């Protein structure tokens, strides 16, 4: 008996010892994934892969908004108090360095967009409609991403295929090569016939997908930025003449939910009112950020239905007085577009009145604020997604509006000698702004019109640099930072400038290009930093 038992143990011991177990180690499989070798085959794969491109594009919205706008002369970064989001303050005051995370995140996000686009472009064969469409959409995405990299950073690494570990550290790219690629991508996509096309201005069926005319609009913009005005004029005219886009009547709502997929939107990233996925809409806290600072303002009228301004804002992105003054210069204080873009404190106090007027709480002040309240980007309760605790909104983020196409077309036409169309386009903008038509046109007028029409819409900084106007417009940025404390005893706005910097402002020869992010410089031995950084 005893011998038997020992024998048995010996066998069991031996069995285990001989590695019966090791094969078990191979049986553990990764859940919820597909191997790369088995992907990039079917139409369904193409739909999944291109959705990842859209998803990444949308996730750029926050940094797209803040990087481009804080660098402009449209807004102060604002927030709760000095230091609240110092990364935004640094941008707004031109005190940022290569470690600025908003800048760095936008840079890396664009490359992620390029990476996902490259995967689609390089891995699918164009043997079906769905795959052709995905490839064309990916090319548009890649073109748009490189447009931003080249215009903001200049000679960035040029990557159009997936990198193997030995290729990780890419040198600076050649700018003209990249412009060429941008044009190739966008024009090939537009010409592919695979992209969606709207049937009319009122057609919303293309939804959030890229269209042929979006590709052409981006192409036209890229051509303008290269100074290829006549080519740009041709490209942009084809968008205008398609008749599939028009300016909406109600300027106040150009960025609002009610105009999602509207006739003026060339391309937008989508966010929907789905309470079960409130935080998967790509707009998490963007609304709160630009919403009016609710712990300093009495927004309680929202609760009684006196107005729809949601009391959960954090008070960033406040219009500068000089933007207001630019409006007044063109439109007067009662200008239609001015009033649809921003409000003075006197106007704000009429909101919710008489029951619950919006006022600055006694003894408090708004930081980074000169008494002008962003209205175009207002934070509406009706746009707050259910179940998001006020942290996500369902208005789509516009990547490009038709107004920009018209203004780019006007510039391209003017600079390629087609004054007639230039005037026509600019007057379309002015008509909608309820301004009298111009009799003649200069580049300066286009610039002024564009600043007002597209203020706080992420185009100003790149334009200023392109026009060579940045130093003039931005050299005082960050010299002093205001706080707004409501009305003084004499009934006028109380604005003071308690904060100041010793170094500030746009520096010619340096700030035309942003620095490559600190991380990129640390990990990439082959890249050369932009001048001045």
């Amino acid at each position: 008996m005893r011998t038997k038992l020992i024998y048995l143990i010996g066998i069991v011991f031996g069995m285990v010892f001989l590695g019966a177990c090791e094969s078990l180690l191979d049986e553990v499989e990764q859940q919820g994934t597909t191997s790369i070798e088995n992907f990039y085959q079917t139409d369904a794969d193409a739909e999944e892969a291109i959705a990842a491109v859209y998803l990444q594009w949308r996730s750029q919205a926050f940094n797209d908004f803040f990087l481009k706008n804080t660098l402009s002369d449209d807004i102060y970064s604002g927030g709760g108090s000095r230091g609240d989001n110092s990364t935004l303050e640094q941008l707004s005051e031109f005190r940022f360095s290569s470690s600025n995370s908003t800048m760095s995140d936008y840079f890396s996000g664009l490359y992620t967009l390029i990476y996902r686009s490259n995967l689609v472009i390089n891995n699918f064969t164009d043997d079906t409609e769905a795959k052709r469409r995905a490839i064309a959409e990916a090319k548009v995405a890649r073109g748009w991403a490189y447009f931003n990299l080249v215009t903001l950073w200049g000679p960035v690494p040029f990557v159009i295929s997936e990198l193997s570990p030995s290729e990780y550290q890419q040198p600076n790219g050649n700018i003209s090569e990249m412009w060429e690629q941008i044009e190739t991508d966008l024009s090939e996509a537009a010409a592919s016939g695979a992209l969606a096309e709207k049937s009319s201005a009122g057609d919303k069926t293309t939804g959030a997908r890229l269209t042929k005319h979006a590709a052409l609009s981006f192409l036209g913009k890229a051509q303008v930025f290269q100074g290829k005005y006549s080519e740009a004029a041709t490209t942009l005219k084809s968008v205008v003449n398609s008749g599939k886009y028009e300016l909406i009547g109600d300027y106040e709502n150009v960025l609002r939910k009610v105009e999602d997929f509207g006739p003026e939107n060339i391309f937008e990233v989508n966010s929907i009112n789905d309470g079960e996925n409130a935080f998967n809409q790509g707009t998490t806290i963007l609304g709160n950020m630009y919403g009016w600072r609710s712990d300093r303002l009495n927004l309680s009228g929202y609760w009684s239905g006196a107005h729809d301004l949601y009391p959960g804002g954090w008070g960033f992105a406040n219009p500068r007085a000089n933007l207001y003054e630019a409006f007044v210069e063109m439109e007067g204080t009662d200008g239609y577009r001015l009033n649809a873009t921003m409000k003075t404190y006197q106007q704000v106090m009429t909101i919710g009145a008489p029951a619950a007027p919006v006022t600055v709480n006694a003894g408090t002040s708004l930081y980074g604020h000169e008494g002008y309240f962003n209205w175009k980007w207002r934070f509406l309760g009706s746009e707050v997604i259910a179940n998001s605790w006020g942290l996500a909104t369902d208005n789509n983020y516009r990547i490009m509006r038709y107004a920009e196409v018209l203004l780019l077309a006007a510039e391209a036409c003017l600079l390629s000698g087609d004054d007639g169309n230039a005037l026509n386009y600019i007057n379309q903008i002015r008509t909608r702004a309820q301004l009298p038509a111009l009799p003649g046109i200069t580049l300066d007028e286009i610039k002024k019109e564009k600043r007002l029409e597209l203020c706080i819409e992420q185009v100003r900084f790149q334009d200023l640099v392109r026009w060579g106007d940045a130093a003039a417009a931005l050299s005082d940025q960050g010299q002093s930072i205001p706080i707004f404390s409501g009305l003084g005893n004499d009934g006028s706005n109380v604005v003071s400038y308690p904060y100041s910097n010793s170094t500030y402002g746009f520096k010619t020869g340096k700030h035309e290009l942003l620095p490559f992010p600190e991380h990129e410089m640390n990990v990439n031995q082959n890249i050369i930093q932009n001048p001045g950084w």
Partner: protein
Amino acid sequence: MKKNQDLSGYTKFPGLKKLFRIMKLTPFLILISIISVFANKIYSQSKMLNLNMEKVTVREVLSKIENQSEFHFMYSGEVINVNRLVSINVQNAKIDEVLKSLFTGTDVLYTLKDRLIVLAIPEQTENFTTQQQRKVTGKVTDASGLPLPGVTVAVKGTSAGAITDAGGFYVISNISSDATLQFSFVGMKTQEIPVLNKNSIDVELTEESIGLEEVVAIGYGVQRRSDLTGAISQVKANDMENRTITRPEQALQGKTAGVQIIQTSGAPGSTATVRIRGYSTNASSDPLYVVDGLRTTDISSVDPNNIESMEVLKDAASAAIYGAQAGNGVVLITTKKGKKGTGKISYDFQYVTNQLNRIPKVMNAEEYINYMTEGNHITTEEISAVWDGETDTDWSDVAFENSLMQKHNLSFQGGNERGSYNLSLSYLDQNGIVKGDKDVYSRLTAMINGDYNINDWLKVGTTNVIERWKSKSVSENSEYGSLLASVLTMDPLTPAYFTEDNLPDYMQTYLSSGKVLLKDETGRYYGLSEIYKADQVHPLLMRDRTDADSQGASVIGTIYADFKPFKNFTITSKLGYRGSFNSSYYFDYIYYANDVAKNDNIGVGRTNYNSLYYQWENFANYMYDISDHHLTAMLGISYSEPYSTTVTASGNAVTNDDPTFRDLDYLTATATKSVSGGYSDTGRQFSYFGRLSYNFADKYLIQASLRRDASDLSVLPSENRWGNFPAISTGYVVSNENFFPKSIFVSFLKLRASWGQNGSIGPLSNFSYRASISSDGSYPYSDEIAYQVASYPSTLSNSELTWETSEQLDLGVDLRGFNDRLTFSFDYFDKKTKDLLVETTPPFETGVSSVTVNAGNVSNKGLEFELGWSERINNFSYSIRGNLATLKNRVTYLDPTISRIDGASFHTQYGITVFEQGFPVWYMRGFELTDIDDATGDPVFVDQLTVDTNGDGKPDMADGSITDDDKVMLGSGIPDFTYGVTINASYKGFDLLLFGAGSEGNDIYNCLTRIDRPRGNKLKVFYDDRWTTSNTDASKPRPNANGEDKYWISSDAVMDGSFFKVKQIQLGYTLPKTLSKKLYMSSLRIYTSLDDWFVFTNYPGFDPEASAGSTSSLGVDKGSYPNSKKVVFGINVTF
């Protein structure tokens, strides 16, 4: 039962002055001897006898005495003439007198040992020459030469034996010359001496020193402490019993050098973080726990009262037997097993009141108003609009109360030659110091341990801990809503409560606009601040806005069999299992406090988390002894498999407001529902391990071990799944050399050296080496709720990924002296961890934000000292033990592609702790404050040299502005040294215990003032010496100073977190046996204790000890739950 033992059947012994007798029942004799020595004499002095007997035999008198009392007699009927007729008449006589009158005039001598009376006759003649058997006599003395009565002298392998008499003499006859005598006595080292041709054997017993002979668990085996070649610290049951600790980890604090316990929270039931010899990785550095052979990461179910001993395997060589999981050290836990002997029932009870220990000083109403108005944060008009001019709310009064904790432990244990059992039930009920019952923890634990020898070659056994727990908790340690932080940041101007009638206008307005304002249990409204509208609101409102309830059950245990197919060879097959089943529930109430702290919909949710684990280990131990050569070999294999699942569901509307409807079953049809489930894949690990120890003449010791571990595909690719973890250690017992001088100063001296490698898989899991397509997210193309799933490769492949390896050198000295009263240990260790697993971001153009690489090295070096002294002077005994460990921690290498890794953040200030080459792991980073500008009151920061003008790679110029680049190291949460002192003293029935532990040189990052919430109240240190126009030479800036955004993450926010805590002052009293016997108990001890009562620290926050997160937020205080101070009353009873 007849109590007296007639030992007839033995011949009258010839012999020495006094004679005892032999008896058959050796075990009984041992027991009696124990009683006789340790019981006091009170009984014989106090017991009064009444006897009135005429012409009866001595036997009858003795019998009568036994009936009347607890005395019993031991004698040999052959020797003592008990049939002699006597008459006796005594009233209220002591036993002494009775015996005197009985035996006066005879040659009978009587010896009184408590209740045992031994009758004997002095030897007169020598007639053993006629005997065939050998007779051995001798005297047993202690080290100082004093005779030892009551020593058991047993003939090994037989039931024969004797007990030494009052003079320490013994006599044993009828034994053969090849027999061996065994001398044993409680508290003394047992000695074995072969009889051979000797007729007289005198023995000197030495006190069983604190553990040289005692065995220590070393993983898959045990070893004599004297044979240890590694650095293993042991904490035994008496360091865990009668403490107010609730978790086993806490018992390690201050008791052993080199083991740091970070109690990150003082909330009921909260866990403690254990760091053994430093911080060896950027990820969690938690040690591996092994409970009775079961590997686990969670030991919360084990009640400290049920632990026999905990061994901490500190050096790599000791830990290497656990290979890939041992990189951060190993803690072996051995639960209590039954002991051989009569069964024992014991009950321990502890009743504890908790109270807040230190109340941090924050600004009062007047100071608050001064500060806020000076800084223009608040205007005087605003204050007068809401403040009644009197209110000065002390929020710590509002939030805290004294609370109770009770612990019960009932255990049954026993055993015999064949088996033993230990059954134990423990109950813990702890209520935290936050008012009410929203911070509670209760745990019921059953322990079932048993083993049985089926025959002489097969033993089976089982160990099991079964647990059921419940807890409720409040929010802590967050800048977005810590109840504890609210106590320190709420403004003092807001009253704590309002009745319905005196609601201020603003609250009335909220009510009339339909908002829900919360009330306390008496119907008063919680005061809402109109001044400070932030995430942190009334602490009790924060308590009441959510019901959070977690509960669960777990089983951990083993079933094992030891086969002994032949001598010195044991094969153990052990199945270990662990199951834990956890369920958490929350209900968020609708409420409004301000626009930041509010909830418009109810929320209800549940999460179920279950994990199952089993391991099967087979190992063989072989011992080989020949003369001075002692060889031990162990070889084994292990297979383990964890598995876990999670399901989470929530919704935001229920059909009925009634409390019974607050669950997922009652969600409305239109409620927004969310379900998410996780499925953690089965993980598998397979290992071989072996160990060889060789001991030559107890002088030269050497031990080597090797473990080979393989993980499944989720951890590493099959090409490099195997890891080898070798170790070697040696010891040299100098004191056993002949040349070593025999002196009382040093009786034992051992030198040790060890080297080994351990692994850590830390962040390796879930296929991090492999890029594959995962569906992560989805995208809607229209306004409809319809999504397209999005798929992309989540990471880049890294087929070269491998284990983290730590390599450690340990040099040590163990010393004993002064008759083993002094013990001393010293260790130096140098631990290097390489191939640190870092999740890093490759160059951005790769398009991938993270890839796991082996990219860093960390070094931990330190010295450890343990010093002990114990002494017994008559009835007084005392011992002092102290330990101290230093630690020097550095990140020695980080791949150049990673400049630094950001750790904790404070609101929008990222990287307040970072991981960077050349610095301690997760050091605290921020701006260096030089001064407060006398003219402006603004803080002045150091503009660090960041610009390299001459191109030599070293920055030599400042850039003229204070930016993120000017942040430097401000401190570290890692202490320079930690220490502990334990003092025990006992005198007769009284015992006293003093225990303290401390930490020196660690910093705390005080994160209470969020830059965007300037109206929050502040610690008074920021008020007292602030800059004002009349105090321009200030040490703190003016309120609302320029640069305040940097100030709250500057050197002023990093504070000294050193502390020393008197963890325990306990006074106990054990009732005399006579008294406890009357209470039907075999022993009864009562005690009272002050725990965590005295704290010495400069830290102005709640509790320097509980102001620390673990890992990357080490030392970051965002409002942690402080440890309370406790008054304890307890009893220990055995039956």
